[in-house]
């Protein structure tokens, strides 16, 4: 479940970037492409969060099984 949501979210982020990148003098390429750097930082952040969410789920399963 969580994985599907994250994949859809990632797709939306890429589509959003794509829509910003239309034309030559667009928003992301303005001010020396600084927003491309912001995009890179966001991808890095969400990549690590993605793994942490998976780890969280794994620990939750372990906790739930412990009582049985």
């Amino acid at each position, binding site marked *: 479940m969580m994985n599907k949501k994250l994949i859809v979210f990632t797709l939306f982020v890429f589509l959003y970037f794509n829509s910003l990148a239309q034309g030559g003098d667009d928003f992301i390429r303005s001010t020396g492409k600084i927003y491309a750097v912001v995009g890179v930082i966001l991808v890095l952040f969400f*990549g*690590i969060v993605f793994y942490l969410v998976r780890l969280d789920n794994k620990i939750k399963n*372990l906790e739930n099984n412990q009582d049985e």
Partner: protein
Amino acid sequence: MNVKNNWWKFLAVIIMLYVLLAGMLIPMKSGIYGVDSISLIASKNTVIEVEGYNANYDKAKEFRAWIKFDSSHIALAKAVSVKNYNKAVLTFDLNVNLPGTGDVLPATLIIDNEIDGYAIFPEGLVVTRNASAADIPFKHATLDDLHVSEGIKFPYMNILHETIRNTFFHVAIWMAMFLLMTVALIYSVLYLWKPRLSYDHHAYSFTAISLVYGIIGLATGAVWARFSWGAYWTNDVRLNMAAVAVLIYFAYFILRGSLEDGDKRSRFSAAFNIFAYLAMIPLLLVIPRLNDSLHPGVGGNPAFSGEDLDNTLRMVFYPAIISLILFGVWIAQLRFRVFQLEEKHIDKINSGSPLVE
């Protein structure tokens, strides 16, 4: 959380905070963003309009500009009229005997003022020779008293512009991945030498986080490429080889998933991990250097090797690697602790269940 044992986790957070603040807030040096036309026709009044980046042309008092054909043929602009803070119109007298033999000559534009320092537009211009001026001698000028802007600033490079800051994120995460995979390799070798389950679990944990780093490395590169090359992915050797290296590590997890728990799985995956590491070295470090590429740092593109990795970049780049490595070790330890809990859980079932007796 016990500070005494977990000081390095605080360190990871503090260094990352420093990297984000310094990496995003230190300004860029001034540079030449572009010119109105890169192809010039040599005449008595060759006019070129230059657009600067981070420039203060209107505040500068001594604005000078040169066109450099080769080390001994440098022409000084005879007039400079500043339009606004980042635009200036330069007029050159090129109705002279230009060096070389071809009809068109490559040339470099250099501008200098006392606030922004000097800026170079390397090999950015193409000058068409005026054949009728062959008998008029070249008026030599020298590049002297170039100014250097004050304060800590990141270097300005063509194509890269502000994305030189990706050194601290995209490049640093590849470096961190490399080190974490080396740690995983050491644990794999240790397992083959002495088959202890904790070695196998450590190897798995470190491989998992380095694979996450590798995927982030590919994805951050794709975001950058979209805005610099116009496509998320190109058929560039460096890109494809990096993708192959990441896919080989993917296979490590597929291999583990396809085998049942036990010594056989641990041994197979340890051996595969060593193979994957040995395959990664040529894929990431050797093959991309043998081929031409659009990637910064290959084939004369601006990047961070040698003189390009400026001291101000190093000041943030090395801490960024250290911080990402510490985060990687932290997350790998979390994964390892999950293994330990699972083991305890299995022991409990085995010892506590009446079915076993």
